[in-house]
């Protein structure tokens, strides 16, 4: 497992850096936030991303993708996160593409993957039902009726849930809340009768929804993977998602830090640059080190995912914890070091703080993953 980028990954990264800087600088995000756009990402921009092949990075060539794996999409997500680029790349290109490609039937793959590749189909993954991430607490019910299942219940904080065409939903087919068994994943058309999407207004101004299912009938063909095996498969899908969101959070932290470092080199007080104060220098140096540790953690985790390492789960929790704590630190320090303008809406740095706190919650906080790391390490 080499912790350096391959030539192809470096190429993807450079392309993504240019794209983010030219096509979606931070004012692109600001404009979306200030608009009344219900989706909060830009369809034309997504079309451009699709032309670059990004939604298909994790999809095999036979379905039109480029098969660069999680590592490939992580470097793109990291770069796009530096300008806070909103897009369906995470929910569709990572969560949707990975779940269907890894656990779908040949029919499901043929039906969905090519549509994901060309940007026509977006997906969401509906897991949680309460304020804290915990997939095994699922109560969302799927009752078998002849050849069909009847889905009922409510899912919360579904990423891209306000607009996705397809919902991959975690449901309980037996047992009770808290059991890791008796869980099944279903792929459901979001337009079906009985599905109600309630758009959420979150601090980071991105696309989320609570989704209710009121006796929605789906056929057994919509099961993703096998019946009642989702206890394991959901954890695997989530681990891939956790690593990808960690890469995004790393990009957020890098950008917030670079912006802050520039400010320390420009802002004068008491007749000198504030960056000459040791009280700020040491804190900046610590942030630099934490970001370096985060880079290594994210890279080790994405490599573990692509190599299907036995240590994948632990490295996923490691990456989510480390990126969470680093971004937490950097987003706070960035505001403080900017002083007064740091708390104005006019200045961009506050966007990183808001994004940070939401991203920290996605698929488990640092606390959740610190506990999981201990469980997986045998203490």
């Amino acid at each position: 497992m080499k912790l350096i980028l391959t030539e192809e990954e470096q190429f993807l990264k450079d392309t993504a850096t240019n794209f983010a800087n030219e096509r979606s600088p931070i004012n692109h995000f600001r404009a979306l936030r200030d608009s009344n756009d219900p989706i909060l990402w830009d369809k034309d921009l997504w079309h451009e991303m699709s032309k670059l092949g990004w939604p298909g990075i994790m999809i095999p060539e036979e379905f039109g993708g480029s098969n660069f794996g999680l590592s490939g999409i992580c470097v793109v997500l990291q770069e796009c996160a530096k300008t806070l680029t909103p897009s369906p790349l995470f929910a569709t290109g990572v969560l949707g593409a990975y779940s269907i490609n890894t656990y779908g039937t040949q029919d499901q793959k043929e039906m969905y993957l090519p549509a994901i590749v060309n940007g026509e189909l977006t997906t969401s993954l509906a897991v949680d039902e309460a304020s804290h991430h915990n997939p095994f607490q699922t109560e969302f019910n799927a009752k078998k009726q002849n050849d069909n299942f009847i889905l009922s219940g409510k899912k919360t904080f579904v990423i891209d849930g306000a607009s996705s065409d397809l919902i991959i939903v975690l449901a309980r087919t037996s047992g009770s809340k808290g059991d890791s068994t008796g869980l099944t994943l279903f792929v459901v058309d979001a337009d079906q009768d009985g599905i109600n999407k309630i758009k959420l207004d979150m601090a980071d101004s991105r696309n989320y929804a609570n989704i209710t299912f009121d006796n929605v009938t789906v056929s057994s063909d919509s099961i993703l993977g096998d019946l009642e095996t989702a206890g394991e498969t959901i954890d695997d899908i989530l681990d891939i998602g956790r690593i990808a969101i960690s890469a995004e959070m790393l990009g957020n932290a890098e950008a917030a830090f670079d912006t802050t470092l520039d400010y320390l080199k420009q802002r004068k007080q008491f007749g000198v640059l504030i960056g000459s104060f040791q009280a700020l220098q040491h804190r900046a140096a610590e942030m630099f080190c934490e970001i370096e540790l985060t880079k290594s953690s994210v890279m080790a985790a994405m490599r573990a995912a692509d190599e299907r390492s036995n240590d994948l789960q632990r490295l996923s929790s490691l990456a989510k914890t480390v990126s969470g704590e680093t971004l937490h630190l950097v987003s706070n320090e960035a505001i403080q070091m900017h002083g007064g303008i740091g708390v104005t809406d006019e200045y961009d740095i506050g966007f990183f703080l808001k994004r940070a706190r939401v991203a920290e919650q996605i698929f488990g906080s640092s606390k959740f993953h610190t506990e999981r790391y201990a469980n997986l390490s045998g203490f």
Partner: protein
Amino acid sequence: MTDLNKFREDTKKWLDKNCPPSMRNGADPKIPVDEVWGGRNAVYKNPESKIWLERMGEKGWTMPTVPKEYGGGGLTKDEVKILNEEMFFIGAKQPLLSFGIWMLAPVLLEYGTEEQKKLHIPKIIKGEIRWCQGYSEPGSGSDLASLSTKAEDIGESFLVNGQKVWTSYADKADWIFALVRTGPKEPKHDGISFLLIDMASKGVSTKPITLISGKSPFCETFFDNVEVPKENLIGELNAGWTIAKKLLQHERAFISNFGLAAGMGSKRDVVSIAKKHLGEEDGKIKNTFYRSEISSHKIKEHAFGLTLKRAGDEGGKASATASMFKLYGTEHNKKRHELMVAASGVNGVAWDGDEFEDSDKNLTRAWLRTKGNSIEGGTSEVQLNVISKRVLGLPSQ
């Protein structure tokens, strides 16, 4: 068979034949363990420690990448990896601990003359000469460049007068590599030279310093009209600061690796200590407050280990990373010891006597020793200064 496969086969065979039984996995625990530093006055409790050092020294495998002409192994990076792996598989002990290997030899290779390299490096590799480091002085700690031990030009040789402090194992070393002031009128960084001094020279004396741990790994070293031949000057006159800084990078890299290796390979493990003293339930540390703190710490050490690996994979972008590794390696080592002491309860602060196990008493001493880690070789604050200025380009006041 590729060359590397053949090298692996040969290495395996050689180790099998030459690594003595008490120097590898499955050693009889009754045989005393030596901390082998070599040198003229080395004493061995276990004769196999000496045999192992001699055999590895002869192969040049205590410094495997150094060219054979200087007594090294002349191996490629890939071969060294194989050697390390094969040694790891049989649990082979490191044959030699040496400041010569970790610090002096790398700068001799870079700055020494051909004669100096051929004279000193083979003896370092074979463990025949034990070196110590003469950097700090009573008045020059973090501000090392203010050092005042002077070396006057008296024709054939230098006349050295002054005092060094924090000299590790000066009382046991054969030679010292020292920073001395040769240009009293130059700006402070431009009047320093890098000099090698035989500790057996007339006028050199040492005095051990007792630390808070009760141990004395460091000494004060005094130079009273010591004559040092001019051929012992490394590099140009008054150009010693560049060499000094380079050597500090090697030292920092070593200290940070040492912290990590100590944590991973040590019998002292925070998890087992916590399970022993705080109890265990379903394989988990019973007390959830300690458990979460330990897990947070383990995660940080894991991320740090991955960063060392990444730096290796990138081919080591030296100076920036050396400061970071020194800072984190030592701070993590301190934190780990604090956690072990806390998890041990009162046993973690046991000092002496028969009421406590050796492991408890040793932990107390080890914990106290770690307090020096973030001071020696450049304090944590100095490392943060280096990162701020050289890596981040933040302005000076």
